[in-house]
Structure formats: C-alpha cells, structure tokens
C-alpha cells in the first residue's frame, strides 16, 4: 500500500492494517519522519514538498518489491506527504510486517533509506521572507549505498 498525499496520516491506522494483514506475523517495524529544520537556513517555519506524480509511486513500488525479494515481508505500507508542511508535522511513514524481527527492521530501514535517495521528492525550506531548496546530504547517499 503506497500513498502520496497532501493530508496528514495516522500511524495507528497503518499499524492496525499491518497487524491485520495475515497470520504468521510476529514482527511489525515502523518508521515515521517528522519535519525538522535542516540547519541550512535561519527561522525555518515549514517546508514545501514537490514530487513527480506517477514516477514517485513507481519508484516506491519498486523499492517495496526489492525489499520483498531480499527479506520476508508480509506487507509494507508507505505514505509520503506533499505540499506545505509545518515544523514537527508528520512527513513520511514506512511500516513492514514480517514473520521475523530482523527482516521487519531491515526491510523498513532499507525502504526508508532508498526512498530518500531515489524517490523524486524535493523539499524547499520556508522562512518568513525567503525560500530555499534543500540540498541532498552526502550522508543520505552513503546510507543508501550501504545496502547495495
């Protein structure tokens, strides 16, 4: 289940959907990202998130498929928000349920890391009187490459 949407999401609903997704599930790992100040700009009040409609969903589906080939994944749920978001709002959710905890953790972290370097989203930081496109962090590239 992959959703790209403007509106907020409820991690509790996603958790329940993962838990109900089948028998044999022993492990549910989730990750939620919140909007925070990147440190590039002073007085940041929020973000604007742009994406490439169509491609975004395809890329995330590919990442979930890859995770499912590498680990035991009973179900994965990914939500990414777009548009205008204030500091501390929820921006991204990745949840994986599996028979085994190592697989749940690995698949969840892999999807999250790969999403940051390959899904076409772009963040623009907003202050009272200016805007600034966030630059990709080298650390994010490195974390994603560590899965290769």
């Amino acid at each position, binding site marked *: 289940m992959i959703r790209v949407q403007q509106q907020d999401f409820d991690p509790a609903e996603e958790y329940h959907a993962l838990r109900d997704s089948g028998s044999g599930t022993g492990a549910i790992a989730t990750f939620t990202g919140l909007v925070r100040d990147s440190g590039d700009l002073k007085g940041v009040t929020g973000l604007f998130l742009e994406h*490439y409609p169509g491609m975004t969903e395809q890329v995330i589906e590919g990442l979930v498929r890859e995770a499912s080939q590498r680990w035991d994944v009973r179900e994965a749920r990914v939500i990414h928000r777009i548009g205008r978001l204030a500091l501390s709002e929820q921006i991204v959710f990745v949840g994986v349920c599996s028979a085994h905890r190592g697989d749940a953790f690995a698949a969840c972290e892999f999807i999250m890391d790969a999403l*940051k370097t390959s899904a*076409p*989203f772009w963040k623009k930081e907003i202050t009272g009187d200016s805007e600034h*496109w966030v630059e*990709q962090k080298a650390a994010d590239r490195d974390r994603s490459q560590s899965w290769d």
Partner: protein
Amino acid sequence: MTTDNTIVVKFFARLREELDTATLEIEAEPGLTAGRLLQDLAAKGGNWAQLDGAQPVMIAVNQVMTKPEKELQAGDEVAFFPPVTGG
C-alpha cells in the same frame, strides 16, 4: 499527426523554478540522447547554462532513472531534476 514525433521534457523543483519552465516539447531526432539534449538546452545560455554539468542533474526517461547515454524516442517523456531530498 505531427505529435507522433514529439518528446515531452519536464523540469522539477529548483530547475523548474530557475528555468521558469515546467514542460517543453521537442522534436525527436535519430541519435538524440538525454545527455545531448541537456547540452543543447545549456547552449541557450542564461540560467539554462547550468545544465551543462555545473550542477548535478538527474535524468528520468519514461519515469525511470537513467544515464545521459540513454537514446530518446518519439513519444518519450524525459525529466531533468536536482538530486532528490524527500523522506
């Protein structure tokens, strides 16, 4: 049907803003690659000049990430954008 020979070019995020262009249509021509198209666009000068390697540009053809060597066909959708920063 002149549109049969068209390639749609899209720009996102900082590139879309700095080039003041979200979408272009160009004519397909034999041997045209994504990288060659970038050079052609850079030759327009001004803000377009940054497409010639001054800044990292990611390339997708038909919504799949690809390399500059990728040859473009009529009907393709090619997109140019900065490194992604979601998540």
